[in-house]
């Protein structure tokens, strides 16, 4: 489900499936409580939607909670506790990531785009436009994460096929739409680029 093996010698470039070796950084170890002392706070500096945000956070503070509770960016939603649903998806250094699966401390020094930062100068992002035009949302809860996953997909593959779109958003659950209008919305955005 998560990793698709490639044919030997394949030249296929499919970054969505690239497996990076798991290196647990000192910072992550620290955040996980493996090296820290109790009551230690950690200082982070994270650029969110173009603004540098400095804060002292509990090492275990999830990035999703950091964005929602400390920065009041409540457009990032939380829909599960096992990294399955994708409602908390944000862009970290341009790549989609589930912000409930990272500590705020791990995002130190990175550039984050949340749903609130997607529209520029009052102009909706083509994906936002697409979701509106094609009725790509109902309750709207999965929508921010869905849009950011789709943004990641389109940045890697500007003209995806329907199958590639469905693959590209398969890390995000939607319980309302049956996905068809979401696929239409992504196609709309791809058509505008």
């Amino acid at each position: 489900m998560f990793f698709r093996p490639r044919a030997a010698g394949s030249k296929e470039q499919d970054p969505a499936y690239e497996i990076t070796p798991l290196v647990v950084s000192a910072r992550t170890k620290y955040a996980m409580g493996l090296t820290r002392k109790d009551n230690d706070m950690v200082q982070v500096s994270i650029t969110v939607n173009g603004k540098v945000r400095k804060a002292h956070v509990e090492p275990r503070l999830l990035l999703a909670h950091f964005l929602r509770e400390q920065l009041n960016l409540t457009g990032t939603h939380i829909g599960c506790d096992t990294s399955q649903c994708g409602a908390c998806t944000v862009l970290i250094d341009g790549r989609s990531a589930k912000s409930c699966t990272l500590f705020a401390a791990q995002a130190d020094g990175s550039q984050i785009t949340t749903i609130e930062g997607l529209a520029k100068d009052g102009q909706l992002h083509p994906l936002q436009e697409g979701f509106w035009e094609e009725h790509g949302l109902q309750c709207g809860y999965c929508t921010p994460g869905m849009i950011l996953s789709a943004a990641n997909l389109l940045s890697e593959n500007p003209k995806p096929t329907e199958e590639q779109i469905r693959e590209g958003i398969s890390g995000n659950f939607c319980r309302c739409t049956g996905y068809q209008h979401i696929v239409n919305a992504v196609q709309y955005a791809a058509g505008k680029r």
Partner: protein
Amino acid sequence: MSTPVLPKLVGQRVKRREDPRLIQGLGTYVDDVKIVGMQHMAFKRSDVAHGRIVSIDVSVAQAMDGVEAVFTGKQIAEFLAPMPIGTPFPSPAHHAIALDVVRFTGEPVAVVVAADRYVARDAADAIVVSYETLPAVIDTEVAMTGKPVQIHKDFPNNLAVPLVPSGTGVAPDGSSVDDTAINKAFADAEVVISQRMLNHRLAPSAMEPRGVVAHYEPGKGTMTIWSSTQNPHILRTMIAAMNGMGQDQVRAIAPEVGGGFGAKINIYAEEYVAAAVAKKLGIAVKWIEDRSEAFVATIHGRDILCYLDLAAKRDGTVTGLKMRLIADIGAYNMLLTAAIPTLTMLMANATYNIPAIRATLTEVFTNKTPTDAYRGAGRPEATYFVERGMDLLARELKMDPAEVRRKNFIPKDKFPFQTQMGAVYDSGDYEKALDLALKNANWPALKKERDAAKAQGRLVGLGLAMYVEVCGIGPSASLPTGGWEHSQVTIERDGRISATTGASPHGQGNETTFAQMLADQFGVPLEHVTILHGDTSVVKQGIGTFGSRSQAVGGTALHMAGTKVKAKMAKFAAALMEANEEDLVFENGKIFVKGAPATGKTFADVAGYAYIPVPLPPGLEPGLSDEAFFEPTNNTYPFGCHISMVEVDRDTGEPRLLKLVAVDDAGNLINPLIVEGQIHGGLAQGIGQALIEEVVYNSDGQLVTGSFMDYALPRATDFPRFELDNTVTPTPVNPLGAKGCGEAGTLGSTPSIVGATVDALSEFGVKHIDMMLRPEKLWRIIQGGKA
């Protein structure tokens, strides 16, 4: 130069007005609500399915920095009574937090109130509970014999509702039962089909878990409660009653609600506890459900076992139907728990003119999460059982599944149709829906395609199912809350229109559809209308959104209130313009005498006069605002036909949905784009049930599918592109002719997919496969067939 007339909006694919805020992350869901000084709640939950609480040690939790209070069940019970239910059946006391016995994994045993959610969770984890474990009751048919143990003291054999009969020969009040007709149907039958089937347990899984913020203000003696609910007015009623407060002292707010699917109708333990604790401590508290909590603490859906018998003639005419239903309702009765399976009985007639039907229903307690309304709520189960029966009959008689159904349809000239089960179907043309679905699916060619695939050794099958459901719920006799809906329409002083509705949406797009209706009614642009909902201090009365009722009931109330206000506005306009009100036209945001648009008055002119009425026209009160309650005379009965094509992988047993053609008839449509979305979503949940979703408990009563790691929610890659169409058979029970479309998709899709899968595996001699269609199950059939 004449101004072009504003186009009519009702019936158009109007883009949603809710979307701009939601696509920019600017909606306010309950977890986004913050009150200064607000505390956070976390629950300690039972990790055994059935056990006696021996001790609870909260000392460590209580001593933690930031912990405001800890309450056990006994402590909460000092100021919170057992939770009420909304059905007339006898029910055991259900405390929000268990007193001495826990009856399902996840049942609350204590609650922590703390300064932040991390601390609250730490403290809840630090509570130590020891249990004397009792045997878990898992299987309904075993439970009915009283084994292995009785769950509730006053409910022998674990029967929540002992056998209730319904149908032909049963008096409406159940006082007498005459079996003559049903017995004769089976005695005379040329063919009898019998099948045991389970419509299995599902987790509703709205993407936003539940949540509540309760804010008690001791100075004012008032409570404000935000909740992720489908029905803030019912919440207000219950919270007020349970806290010894008046309904005027409680304000309930449903902010942006991230899906409900029936699971957010209930008023839950966490909501009662939040309100009671907020009042007790004089503070604001928040509780937000984790997903793993949702799997145990939010109601489940379905879980009804059916023994079906069908009596028929060899020409395919069904002459009798018996349906013995056993519902696994879990450990307690929730708000509507006991009523949901009665809807399965009610719809046993399906789309067919069956002369004799006998349904019986038994509801059984088990050590599982309680069941209640989940999208379709009782009707998908009925549809599934009857449609599987029709498939089995078609197979037995070697008839086309479409033709055996056609043979038995209630003819279109028989409506309104009194069913054997006591329902009166409002309107219908089932053959038209079937024919359109067959045409759109290209049925004969599709059958050839299947046969060709089979000839190549592929396992491809076709399935078809009809459905009829009960929607637009409903007359007050059918709901403990009353079945009406309410609306108030106001022309504001600047001429803009605001309207309230008690139909509290959570994704249905009422802000758009209702505005379309008013824009047309008053001849104004959509932008001049605002629809308000979800706040009991703004929306004076209401019931809520469930049972596909928003448009049929709420939309009608809106239309009625609009009609009243428009009539009054015409009077003011007539006085202002010295004209006859009968001659006035409302168009392009103006009111003018027919044929003279240039001399008309704007809405702002007329509203200005209505609010500063100098002079006040005789017989009129100032102002332009009026309300309406709509009480329908009957439910509505939408229907349709769903056709599926499924391929099963011969090597792995994995089923794949290749095609789904749906024809739905929801009566008149206000916004076809939104209806399409509703149908898509319903289909996705119906398909999910057939193919991948299943709540599984082990024999100890532990929930095996306790997260999205184990409970397979459908992803975008699980579906083909759905092929939709619709017929239009308006209902006579409301002036809009609208029937409701929210649940439709879950009805026909499920049996059509099971039918298609059985058809795909026909070479192995299989007649029925219980859902969900796990690859392993299908692989075993394939292997058995080869052996």
